């Protein structure tokens, strides 16, 4: 009788201790994650009178959301964002994988390769955007210099909607693939060398080794990298901002740029918050797709 009560007492105090130990982390999470997100949703249900912005904000229900549904510019910028995702996520994966495989080669001097990988990643996004803006500049840009040297008519990269889109995709891919490569390189380095030797002895060519060993072994790293890249791609802002400012017209404007304009330029925090909430939703949909796929394939492989 006494014994059980002692045990019970001990259990309780251990649990209390556990809760106490978790508390700081939980509070921190509450303050830096839950509170801002909750505020965002709260703001998205309110609106200020544009003619009297100092007055109390009014509760408008889902008005800000219905406004988004009839806002051409929201749909256009969302479509552009989705296109950036569709092009740059696989693009960065392919280029990043190539770079990772290159960096994983047994170079005698490793640091130049590693540095080369780190540099684009360490470079601030806006810098990357400015650099590529110079590259694609009509008169003084390197790209048009090359094209001219090849005897081709130099196009106006940044004032043609289609060319500007591709120029931005190239810049994003360049910038993003180094992070991709770093993650994949970490994955590559966990693959034991003996697996390649076993495959080599088993008769696999380099390509067969890549397909049969590298790719399947790298799959977890690829998924993590894809999730990261997709989330950041949904938030694409700096590079198009620096390269075209959304131009020509609104042709290369992303959802994040529109949100930035709506909140920080137009000071319409209610509508801007609703747009941000919609962007959050898009990110969730995109990543939950990946998660569902990984869970399914994990179940298939009997984990």
């Amino acid at each position, binding site marked *: 009788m006494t014994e059980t009560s002692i045990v019970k007492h001990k259990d309780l105090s251990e649990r209390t201790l556990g809760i106490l130990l978790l508390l700081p982390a939980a509070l921190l999470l509450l303050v830096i994650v839950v509170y801002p997100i909750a505020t965002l949703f709260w703001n998205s249900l309110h609106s200020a009178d544009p003619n009297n912005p100092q007055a109390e904000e009014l509760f408008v229900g889902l008005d800000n959301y219905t406004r988004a549904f009839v806002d051409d510019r929201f749909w256009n910028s969302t479509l552009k964002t989705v296109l950036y995702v569709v092009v740059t996520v696989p693009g960065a994966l392919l280029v990043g994988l190539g770079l990772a495989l290159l960096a994983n080669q047994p170079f005698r001097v490793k640091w130049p390769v590693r540095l080369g990988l780190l540099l684009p990643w360490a470079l601030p996004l806006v810098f990357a955007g400015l650099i590529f803006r110079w590259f694609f500049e009509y008169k003084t840009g390197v790209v048009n210099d090359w094209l001219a040297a090849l005897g081709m008519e130099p196009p106006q990269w940044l004032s043609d909607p289609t060319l500007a889109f591709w120029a931005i995709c190239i810049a994003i891919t360049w910038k993003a693939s180094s992070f991709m490569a770093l993650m994949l390189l970490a994955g590559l380095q966990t693959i034991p060398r003996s697996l390649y030797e076993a495959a080599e*002895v088993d008769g696999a060519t380099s390509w067969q080794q890549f397909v049969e060993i590298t790719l399947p072994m790298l799959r977890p790293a690829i998924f993590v990298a894809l999730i990261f890249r997709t989330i950041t791609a949904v938030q694409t802002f700096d590079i198009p901002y620096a390269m075209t400012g959304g131009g020509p017209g609104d042709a290369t404007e992303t959802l994040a740029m529109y949100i930035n304009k709506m909140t920080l330029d137009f000071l319409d925090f209610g509508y801007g918050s609703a747009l941000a909430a919609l962007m959050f939703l898009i990110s969730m949909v995109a990543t939950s797709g990946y998660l569902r796929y990984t869970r399914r394939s994990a179940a298939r492989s009997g984990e």
Partner: protein
Amino acid sequence: MAQVRLKNVVKAYGSNEVIHGIDLSVESGEFVVFVGPSGCGKSTLLRMIAGLEDITSGEIAIGGRVVNQLPPRARDIAMVFQDYALYPHKSVFENMAFGLRLRKLPRDEIQRRVSDAAGILQIEHLFERKPRELSGGQRQRVAMGRAIVRQPKAFLFDEPLSNLDALLRAEMRVEIKKLHQKLRNTIIYVTHDQVEAMTLADRIVVLQAGKLVQCDAPDAIYNRPAAHFVAGFMGSPPMNFLPCQVGDGGRILHLPGGIDLNVPANRVAECARHSGRSLTFGLRPEHISANAQSGASSAPVSARLMLIEPLGSDTLGVIRLGNGEEAGEITGRFPPEAGLSVGQSLSVSLALNRFHLFDPDSGKAIRGADW
């Protein structure tokens, strides 16, 4: 099955030569074990045969074909790795079938070969499992199965049992031996474990610092070591070594502690050639017995028991021979019923026809004409 022939094989990293010209011929169907301490080059040599390391100079031929320039996949060999190197994302069946699939064998042929190998190794029930769901011994079997299905010209084993615990190791050792008796294939097997070497090999190759020291049948390696190094490496506990002086025209060996041994008549001739020299005297523990017998082939020596290690089947005793500061200590293997106790003085007899002599400078064994 095929012969594997090494001709003056050298491996160097830059100016650092690690394998110094090895000549060896492994006959078809023969089980050869490379043994030596870590760093002796045995794994490197095996990997050179596999093609995983390139050959600096010399020639390697498998089945009569020089393979120096061939990649591993073209050498028609199979290898079992120390960490097994099973493909973690493939099932046991896929692991075993992988090499056959790459060689584009018909599906039913693959099925048949994998089933056969799995039957021999008793792993058919594991086909659907992934390597991480297997025990160490099961992984070992799968790794061997992956090699067997290929029916290669030669099997290469790189310390395959070193990741297993002692009991499992003994069990797998037997399995491997049975397998070889059944399949009669050419096997080159690398280990640092002398028991594996002794039990498995048709012939043992002892390597030291990139050089081949001795290549012989296990019995010869044990009983007629060609060098101080081989004698010290093979056998547990190792052979006892004491400095000695050859005296009286080869009839007497002076050992430390004021002990003089009379050389048996049949070995006087070989000792006479080294009369007056300092040599290394070697005697295995089992050639020391506790009950002193006097005779032509054994010499009673007074000794003191310093330490006892009872092993159950035997008792090892560290004994100090003779008297004086420089008296030598040797280990003897005694029957447990001898009733020994530490500190006890006793008279031991050394089997005089079984001692070995080594040149202290070259380390080479000094042998009589009949050796």
